[in-house]
């Protein structure tokens, strides 16, 4: 007689990738909450976006926005005012680059490369809008080829979403890079969305690739495990790079002054203002995250001649088994709970069945208990 049964060989381990869809509509990050869900800091190096006014305990941090500029950028030397935060933008760029791209053999920080082919040289991303997603959203990693960001690129600030481009990691499930210190990353490509009348992207740009017979514009990099998007600022302007990808030098910030184009913003505005302008042009953002579940499965086998009696006090009436009329009747018990123990009989895990299972000597059960880690 016993109440415990050894599991012996009845365990196995599995690994499962769990995906969740993360949709973020643009009105959440700009509009719905009158920016009460936007947290700015006195250091001014980044802006945090929440899914609800951040003073509420219900608010979840969803992503940050910041801006970086390389010292190699033609715009770098044009930043002369204190408000334009040249040092902070440079520091952000270098911090992100050393983390995400790494160093060359001389120990110098490498720049973000638009096609990920660092050895071949080619175009670099000098001016970047960087969006690190919170772990709550990205979980273990962003699922490849699930990322899509729709941005408004209408030249008018007042109606930014009338013309839109879509930025996505096209074909990344089979075409991603592994030459980053922080794992895998994909190339973000821009295409014209259906809305409005083009062109929204520079038709003579040199920063293009052909995928599946279609033309895509290099728009940035997406680091899957790190959960960080590095977006070239040139999606908002055609003057930012040599033959940049933007179709028009649009009004990036409020107003129509030429200083409020994306290049004017980088050289003349704070990181916070640039983040505000970026949020203003987000139409839709979505991706799938990935959670890696490592599971141990315990097969708890109740054979025909096992677990047919109960120690439940109601099972007996004056020590006599209630469910029998005579000794030869088959015993009956009902399973509602499974307990998993270690060698010292310490209860480590429990599982409950949604309804009682009738156990008699004429049946057998294998209860499959999965613990995820």
């Amino acid at each position: 007689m016993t109440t415990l049964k050894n599991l012996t060989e009845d365990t196995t381990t599995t690994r499962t990738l769990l995906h969740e869809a993360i949709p973020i509509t643009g009105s959440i990050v700009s509009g719905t909450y009158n920016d009460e869900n936007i947290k700015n800091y006195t250091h001014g190096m980044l802006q945090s976006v929440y899914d609800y006014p951040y003073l509420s305990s219900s608010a979840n941090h969803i992503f940050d926005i910041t801006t970086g500029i390389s010292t190699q950028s033609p715009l770098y030397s044009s930043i002369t005012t204190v408000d334009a935060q040249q040092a902070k933008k440079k520091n952000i760029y270098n911090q992100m680059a050393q983390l995400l791209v790494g160093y060359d053999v001389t120990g110098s920080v490498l720049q973000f490369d638009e096609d990920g082919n660092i050895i071949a040289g080619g175009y670099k991303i000098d001016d970047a809008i960087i969006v690190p997603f919170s772990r709550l959203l990205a979980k273990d990693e962003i699922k490849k080829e699930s990322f899509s960001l729709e941005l408004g690129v209408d030249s008018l600030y007042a109606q930014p979403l009338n013309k839109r481009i879509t930025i996505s990691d096209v074909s990344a499930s089979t075409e991603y890079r592994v030459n980053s210190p922080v794992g895998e990353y994909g190339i973000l490509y821009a295409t014209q969305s259906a809305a409005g009348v083009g062109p929204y992207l520079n038709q003579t740009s040199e920063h293009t690739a052909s995928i599946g017979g279609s033309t895509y514009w290099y728009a940035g990099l997406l680091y899957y495990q790190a959960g960080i998007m590095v977006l070239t600022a040139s999606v908002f302007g055609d003057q930012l790079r040599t033959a940049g990808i933007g179709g028009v030098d649009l009004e990036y910030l409020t107003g129509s002054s030429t200083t409020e184009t994306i290049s004017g913003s980088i050289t003349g505005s704070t990181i916070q203002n640039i983040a505000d302008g970026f949020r203003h042009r987000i139409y839709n953002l979505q991706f799938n995250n990935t959670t890696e579940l490592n599971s141990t499965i315990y097969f708890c086998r109740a054979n025909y001649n096992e677990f047919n009696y109960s120690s439940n006090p109601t099972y007996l009436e004056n020590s006599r088994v209630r469910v029998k009329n005579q000794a030869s009747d088959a015993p009956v018990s009902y399973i509602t709970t499974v307990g998993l123990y270690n060698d010292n009989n310490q209860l480590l895990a429990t599982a409950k069945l949604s309804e009682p299972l009738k156990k008699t000597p004429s049946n057998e059960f294998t209860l499959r208990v999965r613990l995820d880690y």
Partner: protein
Amino acid sequence: MAFLDNSGDIILDAVLTDHGRKLLAEANGDFVITKFALADDEIDYSLYNKNHPSGSAYYDLEILQSPILEAFTDNAAMLKYNLVTYGNLELLFLPVLRLNETNGDWSRDPITNSFIVCSNEETTDNGPNSTSFTAVGVDETNTDRTGFLFGTNLTSGGRIQIDQGLDTTQLSPNNSIGDLLENNYTIQMDNRLGKLATITGIQQAPDFVDDDNIAYYTVGMRGQFVSRIANINNAVQGQVISGPRGSRVEFKIATTPDVQSSNYLFLQLGGTVSMANREASGTGTSSCYFIDTTVKITGQNTGCSIDVPIRYVRLA
């Protein structure tokens, strides 16, 4: 915890217990699952209707409709009543545990129906030559009160005695209990309040103490806690099992230094009560702090169990 949805497929809702998570965090190799048990905590077998007019398919209709709660994470709150494997499928009687109160030395306090554990000497007995009469462990004639255990003086005072066997008049006690004899027991008690001790006053170390401060002791025939019930003759005094008799568990409870020296736990977990003291008039009372708790005794092989009510008291 909510009820599990039982409208569709049968699902299994599994969680680590709080103690399991603690062992996982300690990473000392104790988190290795090697065994399982099945239980039926929610089932009320009195609903099993062997005389249902519609036939045997309806005997357990109400039992199978029992809603089941989600799993608790408290390890002490789960798997209270395990299913048991017996090789013999023709058993009609199963063993139970009964509190043996056939003698004043191992009976409960008749006022509270619980065993009262005096936390310190001052609460137990002021001493025969003392002019103070506040102690509650002895009466006005300096006799130990029934149902009182002395937490610091383990050589005197009462004890707790549990008998195992088939408590039925349908079987003669002269019959052998056979394979249904329980040899090993688990005793659970709050480790902040008391420690397990033999009836001769030797304290036992627990197997382990869980995250909720519940201590688990294993006692067996080889130690001083469990013995075979010697007298099988029904006429012999001191028996509570009417049928075949198995084993007997006897123990005392020693109080912890916290309970002996401080009111803290009493203020947190209990209250105050007026109790009869040892004043010569026999009508004197003392105000005492108290904590009510239980000690659970479970047969490791048969799964039969009993909860014994305990009240710790300390002079206020």
